């Protein structure tokens, strides 16, 4: 059985184009998938950090901070991701280099991966801010008041009361956002980033097997979607322990 499956991947057989070493594209293809996952995870983590700061800032910050975060989330969510990615792709290295030069350092070339993660992370952060803000608002206010009445400092209220309780409200939105982040990495193909979609286009272009490669990439994206849907559904069930059950949607 296993021998039959591996023989499918040998050159000349059904999946020969995906053979591990050249002329097969297997290794290149999976490297693209790895790049996609690296950017997704990195951008999502960065978005999570921005989102937590943004949500708490928008709810409990001063008036100025609140307005600034509102401008950030509104603008980022009103402009197409492709345009934002392009603007940030030029602007982020430029700004960093100008800061470095003004401090008397030399210009540096930023690693592509870091730029990709930063660019996408800023976009994800805006959506994450809104998801977490909504989730925090859904935590019964009495809980937070009770925690304050016990004399907990704000950080402890956030860690012990707000965070654990908002998690079950936030997870459906976070799950959606993760799927979106994963799909948005494909947009980095437009700025020449060697992730799964661009790798696929290159492989398809040079072998003329367009259907084969785009279909294979689609299958990989679907596997990621389905698997991560399952993972998020598991965490949602966990965080809902003891709460009345609602029907969760799995893709």
């Amino acid at each position, binding site marked *: 059985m296993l021998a039959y499956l591996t023989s499918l991947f040998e050159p000349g057989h059904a999946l020969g184009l995906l053979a591990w070493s050249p002329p097969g594209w297997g290794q290149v293809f999976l490297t693209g998938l790895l790049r996609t996952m690296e950017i997704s995870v990195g951008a999502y983590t960065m978005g999570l950090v921005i989102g937590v700061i943004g949500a708490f800032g928008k709810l409990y910050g001063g008036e100025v901070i609140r307005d600034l975060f509102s401008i950030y989330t509104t603008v980022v969510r009103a402009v197409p991701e*492709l345009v934002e990615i392009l603007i940030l792709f030029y602007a982020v290295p430029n700004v960093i280099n100008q800061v470095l030069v003004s401090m008397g350092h030399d210009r540096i070339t930023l690693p592509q991966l870091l730029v990709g993660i930063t660019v996408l992370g800023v976009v994800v952060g805006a959506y994450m801010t809104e998801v977490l803000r909504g989730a925090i608002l859904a935590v019964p206010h009495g809980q937070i008041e009770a925690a304050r009445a016990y004399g907990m400092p704000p950080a402890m209220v956030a860690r012990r009361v707000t965070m654990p309780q908002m998690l079950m409200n936030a997870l459906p939105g976070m799950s959606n956002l993760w799927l979106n982040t994963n799909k948005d990495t494909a947009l980095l193909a437009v700025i020449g980033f060697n992730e799964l979609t661009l790798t696929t286009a290159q492989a398809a272009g040079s072998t*003329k097997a367009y259907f084969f490669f785009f279909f294979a990439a*689609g299958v990989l994206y679907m596997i990621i979607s389905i698997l991560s849907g399952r993972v998020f559904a598991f965490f949602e069930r966990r965080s809902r322990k003891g709460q009345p059950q609602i029907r969760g949607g799995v893709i």
Partner: protein
Amino acid sequence: MMDALRPLMKPHRLILMALAVALVWWCAVSLNWAWLPDYWNNGLILQGLWTTIWMLVASWALGLFFAIWLGLAQAAGPWFVALPAKGFCSVIRGTPLLLQMWFLYYGLGSLFPYIPWIRHSWAWVYLREAWPYGLLALTFSFAGYEGEVMRGALKGVPHGQLEAARAFGMSRFTTFHRIWLPQAVRRVLPTLGGETVLQLKSTPLVATITVIDLFDVSRRVYQDTFITYEPLLLLAVVYMAITGLIVLFFRWLERQVPTKTA
């Protein structure tokens, strides 16, 4: 009028607005806008704007039409209709739109020239161009996302409503278009505005398959003049303006619909 302005009259907001005006002023004065009259006069900007808007409107309308069928198939159809509809929605929602678009344009588009009867049919004039593939991908995408929403909305309509309609002697079709669909659409309406904005933000992807939309025009400016930021900033402002118009339109539309639900 004064009441609407009152929230803006706080000191820090006045300062922020002054900063914004200063920023716009700085952008207008010290950035390079010399390319703008050329591209306005040769009509490229208006052509791009027109393409973006009709792509949005056409894919929205077609997509919503398909979405109703997809939702209906999943909510009320037998398994051999429901399963493919669910599969379609899952695939559309589970893979990037860019990949779908390239699959249609490069995949299907490379296949058609080898099929003689397609080459000699009337459709070949259109199939040679890029925009049908872009429109198809955008339509499928909107249908997939909205089909899932429609399924929930159709299922959310109380069953008693449908039973009452049948008891009145309405045919299945009359029940659908008089009772079921209107109530489902009312449920969809609050999310429809957001989905439309998402659809607008998907339209620039058609530029990657050589359709000349607004985004493509800004890239052409960059390729011709090597001016990086100005076209992109203007592009962002235009998209923000269109987003604002869509939001306002749907807010108006929601007010037209009576909100009292049974």
